[in-house]
């Protein structure tokens, strides 16, 4: 199963519905996008990610130097 945001195959089922077997939630272990099986995710082009883009994202808050 491909991640709708970064196209990675490193996805897994995060959780199944607590009541009945009516949906599952999936998560991508590269970009941490998550979606429910009842959704049809359409990620806008501007929000798509690649492993390179992820390393270039801003860091909030910055990590301070060790004492």
């Amino acid at each position, binding site marked *: 199963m491909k991640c709708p*945001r970064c196209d990675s195959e490193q996805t897994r089922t*995060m*959780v199944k*519905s*607590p*009541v*009945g077997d*009516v*949906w599952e*939630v999936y*998560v991508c272990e590269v*970009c*941490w*996008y*998550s*979606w*429910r099986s*009842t*959704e049809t995710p*359409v*990620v*806008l082009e*501007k*929000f798509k*990610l690649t492993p390179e883009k*992820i390393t270039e*994202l*801003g*860091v*909030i*808050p*910055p*990590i*301070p*130097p*060790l*004492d």
Partner: protein
Amino acid sequence: MAKVYKDLREFLTTLEEQGQLVRIKDEVNPEPDIGAAGRAASSMPNGPAVLFENIKGYKGSVVTNVHGSWQNHALMMGMDKDTPTKEQFEELNARWDKYPVPPNVVSREEAPCKENVITEDINLFEVLPLYRINEQDGGFFISKASVISGDPEALDDFGRQNVGTYRIQVKDKDRIGIQALPMHDIAVQLAKAERKNEPLPVAIALGNSPLVTFMASTPVGYSQNEYEFVGALQDGVATDIVPADTAPHLLVPAGAEVVLEGYIIPRVRVCEGPFGEFPGSYSGSRLQCEIQITRITHRTDPIFENLYLGMPWTEIDYLMALNTSVPLYKQLKEGFPEVKAVNAMYTHGIGTIVSIKPRYGGHAKGAAMRLLSTPHGMPYAKIVIMVDDFVDPFNLEQVMWALTTRVLPHKDVTMIENAAGMPLDPSSYPAGMTTKLIIDATTPVAPEPNPRPVELLKDPVGTAKYTEIIKGLIQAAEEE
């Protein structure tokens, strides 16, 4: 004595009695129904809270738009639901001065939030009906949590304990991302822990009494404790708190529906976002902190309280309206007793209107510059409009009158370049840098020349009497 609510449930009961809460009993899908209902309710005049009782695949219920109208806001204060905004501002101001009202620390047995405990196989989805709020959000967000954290260098300093609202993205069954912007109190505490490579313990309280949630989203000083303000805003009635189980130095609201306990994983940043934010646009993905959840305590049949945010106005705009205005007013009033009121309701104070009775030429502009250097005003306030004391800054028709008849742009409009801004304001560039704009719409006072002084129109004698007569005639016609 104003009506005070011990917990969310008591408030929901009052909202329902006052016609300000509706229940949706039919089964709904988590997406897009819950987000859509939050959007719809906050767009309505007198918008009610919406309680979903039956969500496909989940056990519990969700309530949204609890703070999402001036009626609900007034009821939160224990006031008549039709109280005008300026009167609510004035009442908040008066209660603010009761600070500090020390909270009441109750025993574990007395705290409803401890009714159930989960320490193994933690699964947030078992406790909270999580859902995507807006379509392009990168996951399921918790948008209305009160996050409690302490200063690692002063664990027992209650004043420096912080209760704040931060956006939270569910990353896994037992792990969540949190946005701690450098300007936020929690970032100061986190930096101290991360310098030592130590985890920062946190507790996250969901579904609180309405003034706890209100105070968690109020900008107060670093050494001021939010719970002591809750007591003040509850008209002097102390709020009940209880130590967290895993980090007893953290005190959580005793009546919370759910408390998540855990720690910020030190020196780790993971992809988070996008998230539809309060300026009405998405903020993109960033590398942000993550929290490992190690324990959940919750009331039996917990209610998940969450809010919708999107194009203003939505619930978050009501939640951040007067609690942004009052602290700015108090901070400004210290140096400028001539200030009458502050309306900082536009996009969390990015737009702020101040009414003042200036004593001398340039006085109003000086007050605007003070506003721009208050702790909240520094990053947030960008467009500041100064109006005369007789203009109600909450009445935009009156504010527009002041702008159109009092402003000579070449001398009354000032821009201050290269100043601190709010990164989520998409016009700030680079993110967090902006230009400040001051518009002085007050009447010139000496030594500033006022070459064309005017005589202001006054209401004719009898206007008040005729207001009542006309109201009575309308009422009589309606009753026929």
